[in-house]
Structures are given as structure tokens and as C-alpha cells.
């Protein structure tokens, strides 16, 4: 049970750290000032959620690893994030669409996690749900405006749908560990989130004139530590300071 909980916390924390890092790459590069603040705002929320999860994972593991040790001092194969989180940002449309998919999923996930049998996990959900609601709303509105916008924005949004499609099935992939954890009532069973998630996506995609994605051919591996080639480059940047100056604090 403890090993399963540690692994489930780590998966969730890795999703948030890696995606938060990707979003932070937009800082200073977004197409307009308003989004230059909005995207790093979301990134900071995600990294804040990752911190709580890593800290609790470290306590559960019980060998003295803190949030920094877990976030910065593991090797690539030990990260268990979803592949979609580590994909390069692409253009603004692709970043927004990925964030919409993720935030829509996380909103449903946190809603179910509010009634977790684990009090710490339920508390993290209580804080995260407010943030996820805003992320879902902000990105959903952008998907509609880009998908149903100019010829160019519609073309870019549809192209993003095709790039991200193979990575959607992994959201609902249940490993042996996560099955055990959902049965003990700590986290929801991800399979049960697929239908409500698709309903949410359908509603936005209809308003955005986009084709509904197909989840059947899912690219998997992130949960087992098998990553895309983008992951090593991401970690090189993410881990640089802690690797160069071990135990640095600032």
C-alpha cells in the first residue's frame, strides 16, 4: 500500500512539475503580454501542486528525500509523468490545447479526490481544484476562439489536435499500482473519468469546430519511465542548478 501510494503521488507530481516546466518556457515569449502573464501563472500553480505532492511522497517513502531531491535528483527513467506533459510546446495553439486537455482531466480528477480516504491528499485536492477550474476555463475559451477564429488559427488548432491525439489515451491508463490505490479510495479510478472528460472535450470542440479526437491508439510508456526524446533535454535544463550545486538553496 505505501509503495503504491508513493508511486501514485510521484506520477501525479511528475505530471505537474514537467508540464509546469514546459509552460514556464513561454515566459517572455508569449504572443501577447496578457498571455505572457497567464501562462506562467498557470505554470506556478502546477509547480505549487507538484511541491505538495513531492513533499508528501517523500514522507510516505520515509528515507529522507524532500521535494527537491525528488524533483531534481532522479534520472530520466525514474520520472513517471504522462508523455503529453513532456512534449515540446509547439506553437501557442498546441500549448493551449494540451493545457485544456490536462486541466479538464485534472478538474475531474480533483473533484473525485476531494473525498479521498487520505486526509493529506484530500487537502491537496481542495486547494488544487480552484486552480484547475480557472485553468480549464481559460484554456477552454482559447480553444474555442482559436478553433473558430481565423483561417490560420483554425488550421493551427486542427494541426495541434492531430499532434496530441496519440497521447490522450495515456490519461486513462491504469497501472497495477494505481489500480490498488484507487481500490483503497485514495485516488479515483482514472477509467471512470474517461466519459466525463470526453463530454467536456466534445462540448468545447463543437463550439470550436474541431474534430473530436480518437483515443484508441494510445502512445504509452511515461508511467513506466519510458520517455520521448524530448525528456532528456527538458531534464538537462530543469536539473542544471541542483546538479551543478548540489543541495543549493535560494
Amino acid at each position: 500500500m505505501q509503495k503504491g501510494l508513493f508511486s501514485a503521488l510521484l506520477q501525479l507530481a511528475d505530471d505537474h512539475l514537467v508540464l509546469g516546466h514546459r509552460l514556464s518556457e513561454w515566459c517572455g515569449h508569449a504572443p501577447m503580454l496578457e498571455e505572457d502573464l497567464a501562462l506562467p501563472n498557470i505554470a506556478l500553480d502546477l509547480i505549487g501542486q507538484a511541491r505538495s505532492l513531492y513533499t508528501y511522497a517523500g514522507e510516505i517513502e520515509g528515507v529522507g528525500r524532500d521535494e527537491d531531491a525528488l524533483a531534481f535528483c532522479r534520472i530520466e527513467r525514474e520520472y513517471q509523468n504522462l508523455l503529453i506533459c513532456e512534449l515540446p510546446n509547439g506553437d501557442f495553439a498546441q500549448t493551449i490545447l494540451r493545457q485544456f486537455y490536462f486541466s479538464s482531466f485534472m478538474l475531474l480528477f480533483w473533484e473525485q479526490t476531494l473525498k479521498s480516504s487520505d486526509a493529506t491528499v484530500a487537502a491537496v485536492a481542495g486547494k488544487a481544484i480552484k486552480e484547475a477550474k480557472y485553468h480549464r476555463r481559460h484554456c477552454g475559451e482559447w480553444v474555442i476562439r482559436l478553433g473558430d477564429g481565423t483561417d490560420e488559427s483554425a488550421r493551427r488548432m486542427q494541426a495541434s489536435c492531430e499532434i496530441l491525439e496519440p497521447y490522450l489515451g495515456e490519461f486513462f491508463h491504469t497501472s497495477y499500482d494505481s489500480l490498488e490505490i484507487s481500490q483503497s479510495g485514495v485516488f479515483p479510478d482514472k477509467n471512470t473519468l474517461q466519459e466525463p472528460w470526453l463530454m467536456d472535450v466534445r462540448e468545447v470542440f463543437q463550439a470550436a469546430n474541431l474534430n473530436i479526437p480518437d483515443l484508441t491508439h494510445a502512445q504509452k510508456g511515461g508511467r513506466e519511465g519510458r520517455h520521448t526524446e524530448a525528456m532528456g533535454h527538458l531534464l538537462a535544463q530543469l536539473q542544471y542548478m541542483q546538479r551543478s550545486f548540489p543541495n543549493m538553496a535560494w
Partner: protein
Amino acid sequence: MVDEEEIPLWEVFIRPRNGLAHRHCGSLHATDSKMALQAARDVYTRRGEGLSVWVIPSVQISASDPQDREEMFDPSDDKVYRHPNFYNIPDDVGHM
């Protein structure tokens, strides 16, 4: 950088606390009112500044012409009696 025709300018008003009025705090670009409210939240309320946000399209604001300044505002300069400065306030009233 931002196309004013496609992404218009909005004026942002924030109410910091209950009982206070909304105050103008700046402007931003957004495609429509929904996005303008979200951008206002992201740009102007990051440090807990607000409980309520208003946005209005900048083109909807009618402003006085700076060239009319003399006829608009100078006539009030010599009417000091309009300021409530000519009362003796009893000490017991305290700070007003």
C-alpha cells in the same frame, strides 16, 4: 504587435475591498469581454488586489478634450467656498 482591429483594448477597474468603489487600474488587449475578464485577473490581481473586476471596451469611453480644459475646469478655480473648509469642528468630534 497586437492587431487592434482583431484584439481590441479594454479598460480594467478593480474593487479592492467590500465597501470601496471600483478604481481604474489599467488596460489590456482581449478578443471579447470573457477573455478580457480573465486577462484582467491574470494581469492585475496577482497579488491579492481585488474582489471584483469590471472591464469595458476602451472605445466606449467618451473623454473630455484636453483643448477644452480652460472652459471646462478653470471656472471652478476661484470658488474656494465650495470646499468645506470654513467650519470650526469641535474637539469632541475627533478626526473627520
